């Protein structure tokens, strides 16, 4: 695959020239919704406010806005006219994919975080103006950072799934991707319950990756542990494999797209 950063730059410039108004409107709408959320948060909490609860808005907005944006990445392919326009641009499919990823996953996230933190800083500053209100960290707030880490990993995976959905589904990509994801998850759960569980029998997962517990018939309990490198590998794959897999699938789908 030949990749040219010059052409990527041209694609980025072209997309900005043609869609900047849409993006600005979208970010303005997000900023408005976040401002309303912060306002209601301050209004409904009369005295003590936990700073960490503001991060609920961060992630709700990030997941909603991010998935909507990702589902629009290849919306040009939903119609023949726009699809011909898009596919005829002299750039490789890889460059077009990277341009889409940059706009929907990198630039969006950066712009969203910037807006969020500006609004949060402003909201905290306003709250501090009222002497009867206090802003404090949650007592166990440090533990939240591990949760945030996982949320970020899940966000990247989910957003990439919606990006893949935008190249697979010609219409209503957001809805169809959501329905497909739900069906896959339900299917996996049913598979685990009705197929995997009868096979593995008394083998139970523990909280740790690669560690299983078996209860024998006489009541004793055994713990089986996979080699550490296998456990680490499995955990690494579970955390990070989704986005590269979905990007690769999107690339091949883009290559085989006909209009």
């Amino acid at each position: 695959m030949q990749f040219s950063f010059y052409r990527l730059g041209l694609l980025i410039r072209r997309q900005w020239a043609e869609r900047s108004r849409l993006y600005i409107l979208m970010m303005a709408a997000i900023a408005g919704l976040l401002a309303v959320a912060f306002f209601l948060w301050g209004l409904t909490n009369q005295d003590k406010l936990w700073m960490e609860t503001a991060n609920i808005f961060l992630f709700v907005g990030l997941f909603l806005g991010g998935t909507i944006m990702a589902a629009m990445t290849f919306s040009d392919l939903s119609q023949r006219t726009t699809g011909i326009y898009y596919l005829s641009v002299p750039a490789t499919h890889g460059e077009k994919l990277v341009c889409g990823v940059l706009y929907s996953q990198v630039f969006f996230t950066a712009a969203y975080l910037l807006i969020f933190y500006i609004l949060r800083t402003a909201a905290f500053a306003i709250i501090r103006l009222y002497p009867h209100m206090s802003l404090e960290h949650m007592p166990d707030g440090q533990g939240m950072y591990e949760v945030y880490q996982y949320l970020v990993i899940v966000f990247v995976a989910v957003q990439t799934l919606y990006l893949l959905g935008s190249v697979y589904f010609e219409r209503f990509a957001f809805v169809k991707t959501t329905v497909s994801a739900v069906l896959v998850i339900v299917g996996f759960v049913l598979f685990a319950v009705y197929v995997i569980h009868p096979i593995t029998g008394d083998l139970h997962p523990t909280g740790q990756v690669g560690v299983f517990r078996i209860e024998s018939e006489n009541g004793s309990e055994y713990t089986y542990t996979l080699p550490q490198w296998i456990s680490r590998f499995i955990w690494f794959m579970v955390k990070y494999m989704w986005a590269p897999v979905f990007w690769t699938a999107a690339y091949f789908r883009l290559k085989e797209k006909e209009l």
Partner: protein
Amino acid sequence: MIDIQNLQFGYRKGKIFNGLSLHLQAGHIYGLLGKNGTGKSTLLRNIAGLLFPDEGSIRVMGKDPSKRQPEFLHRIFLVPEEFYVPPVTPAKYMEVHAPFYPAFNREYYTRLLLEFEIPLDRTLQQMSYGQKKKVLISFALASGTSVVLMDEPTNGLDIISKSQFRKVLAGTADESKCIVISTHQVKDLENLIDRVTIIDEGRILFDQTLDAIQTRLLFKISFDSEETRTALYSESSLRGKALVMANTHGEEGKVDLELLYKAIIMNRPAVLSAFPA
């Protein structure tokens, strides 16, 4: 330049091409004629790499269009019948799209816009269908691509614009370019194309240069019943019988594309008999 061998292509509803072969060369303006739904647009989209052959092969400038490589895409431009234009001015459109085409001629693009009397201060989406199409045609011709494909380019153009289009296209054609124009409005291509290819139901019915047609066929209006009887094709008109005859005496005449087209559709074997096998 464009080499199509044994092209097989179909949609779910049915087969469009069943073994179509065609060779198009640089330095010509090809008129691809045919009824609506005969596969003209499908053929152009196959050549442009937007559809992939089920079987057979297409090579354009030695490349496989279905790979859609940049070095292929920057040497071919398709003006589709129905198209999208972004909400930018013609100047901005050039600014963001021209760098993708190494041989793009900015001065020529600007000159064509002026010639087509395009309102330069409006965005493309604020323009009429005809104006949008003229901007796209201007861009296609200024792009410097070796292959220009136009699908029904005169649809939506007024009489003056059609005349401008013919003039502009004639001025753009050169030895390095292969221009393929698909249309069912045969009259619009008169005095423009130098090779006529008629397709119907996915097969080539007729493929001849205009010189060969002029040498082999004669188009005339006649009241002579003997001429009408020996004509390869005839039809009544207000001025008499419009005839397509074998040009056995080497007479010079103008090709009536519409009459030729009807003659091929109605009586192809007779018309083909005038050409050497």
